[in-house]
């Protein structure tokens, strides 16, 4: 009976965690999966989102999730500008993804250092009425600091999926990496579309970062813990598939939660790489790979 409840609790909190992971990974699914831009710095952008929410929360008393949404346009614009720089310096000069990877690796450290200079290395946290509360039924208790990010992440995921599948710009984003010339023959400027797509990818980091700091305290180099997870999710989900990202994120969340509950939290990081290896060995196109 006790085991049973423990299991159920672990699965439910794993699902909540997984929903949050989807919000962190969705930006990489767009940039890496759909644009072929290996943005290894994506988790670092998420941490910037955390600090933006922290600043708005501690300075203005703004709700962290609300400020995560409010900062989205700023992140979108930042991502679009960032893509321009990447395009001019790397993409336009020929296809060498390795140089792009080195560029983003460097960006990751630059972001970390800038955050350390601005905020120091200490953990920062936010305050909101729902942090610390729980909802429960019987023996099941779920902390609201996990439920709120889960719901916000679901809305983000469905919103992005709706945008990609139902709008002209969204369909252009899905097509742009498949055939550059064919895209131009559809009267689409590929650089412009990639710029918008990368802007959207970075925009999601604003909300994901806010959700991260709702879940727990954040420090500048914390993004590194997410590199393995987001790449595992993007690959397992089937490069570029938003529904695949959500399902893969939920699987990873549950797997990590069960591992942490029954074998100890120190094993949790091994789960993402285990899943990544398993996915690459058994189904390299991913769950929802086309």
């Amino acid at each position: 009976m006790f085991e049973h409840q423990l299991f159920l609790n672990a699965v439910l909190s794993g699902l909540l965690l997984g929903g949050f992971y989807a919000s962190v990974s969705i930006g990489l699914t767009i940039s890496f999966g759909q644009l072929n831009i290996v943005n290894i710095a994506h988790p670092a952008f998420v941490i910037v989102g955390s600090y933006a929410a922290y600043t708005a929360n501690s300075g203005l008393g703004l709700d962290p999730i609300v400020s995560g949404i409010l900062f989205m346009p700023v992140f979108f614009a930042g991502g679009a500008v960032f893509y321009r720089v990447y395009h001019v310096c790397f993409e336009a000069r020929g296809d060498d993804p390795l140089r792009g990877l080195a560029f983003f690796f460097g960006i990751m450290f630059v972001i970390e250092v800038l955050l350390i200079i601005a905020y120091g290395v200490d953990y920062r946290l936010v305050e909101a009425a729902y942090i610390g509360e729980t909802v429960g039924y019987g023996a099941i208790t779920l902390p609201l600091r996990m439920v709120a990010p889960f719901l916000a992440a679901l809305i983000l995921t469905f919103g992005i999926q709706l945008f990609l599948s139902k709008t002209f710009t969204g369909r252009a984003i899905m097509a742009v990496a498949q055939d550059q010339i064919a895209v131009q023959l559809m009267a689409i400027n590929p650089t412009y579309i990639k710029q918008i797509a990368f802007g959207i990818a970075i925009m999601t980091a604003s909300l994901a970062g806010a959700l991260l700091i709702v879940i727990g305290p954040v420090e500048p180099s914390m993004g590194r813990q997410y590199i393995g997870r987001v790449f595992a999710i993007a690959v397992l989900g089937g490069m570029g598939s938003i529904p695949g990202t959500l399902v893969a994120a939920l699987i990873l969340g549950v797997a990590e939660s069960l591992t942490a509950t029954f074998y100890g939290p120190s094993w949790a990081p091994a789960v993402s790489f285990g899943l990544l290896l398993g996915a690459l060995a058994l189904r390299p196109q991913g769950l929802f790979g086309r």
Partner: protein
Amino acid sequence: MAGYGAARVLHGVTVHLEQGETVVLLGANGNGKSTLINCLMGLVRPSQGTILLEVNGVSQELTGLSTESIVDMGIALVPEGRRLFPNLTVRENLLLGAYRLAARPARAKNLEFCFHAFPALADRQKQLAGSMSGGEQQMVAIARAFMSAPKILVVDEPSVGLSPIMVKQVISKIDELKVAHGLTVLMAEQNFNQAIRIADRGYVMVQGQVAFEGMDAAELRDNDFVRKAYLGV
């Protein structure tokens, strides 16, 4: 004049196209038909010469414009090798054709027309384009170009890789679209007999030059030069 790097492919080619005409570019592989079409679409920059589009008596130079702006002016290309988006569905491919602003309002109507003209595609809207047969892919490619509501439809080698019966069908469909929507068609094609079926006029290209200009299909078919040099009879 145009070419790729140091290789000159076209040498002083002059081709013109009147509204409502179907003009075919004939010639065997490697004689510059596709290069000429790529120049028109802005995919290859000619080293000399101009491409002019006359709309309502106003002449506009296309030379030097980007491919997307040329397509945006109502010139759609069905490219050689089809160039579909293989990981997107048939429907998504077709809707991408309607991306240009002028084509968006009519997309539902045009989509319906595509499914009417190509009934095979209606049942396969949700299938990934990359998983279809060559003939079906060619239909998607033509339908996708049509979805941009073009005034001029440019088709490059629609018969490549298709069975003879498929070639016949595809060529007929191009004519059907042209007649139904008053398009102007420029088609490059190696399959002489199929191409002249729908042609009003034609040019035979040999080694990057226009070797013969036929003012109607019969003139192309019966010309001694064409028979000797091109058909080998």
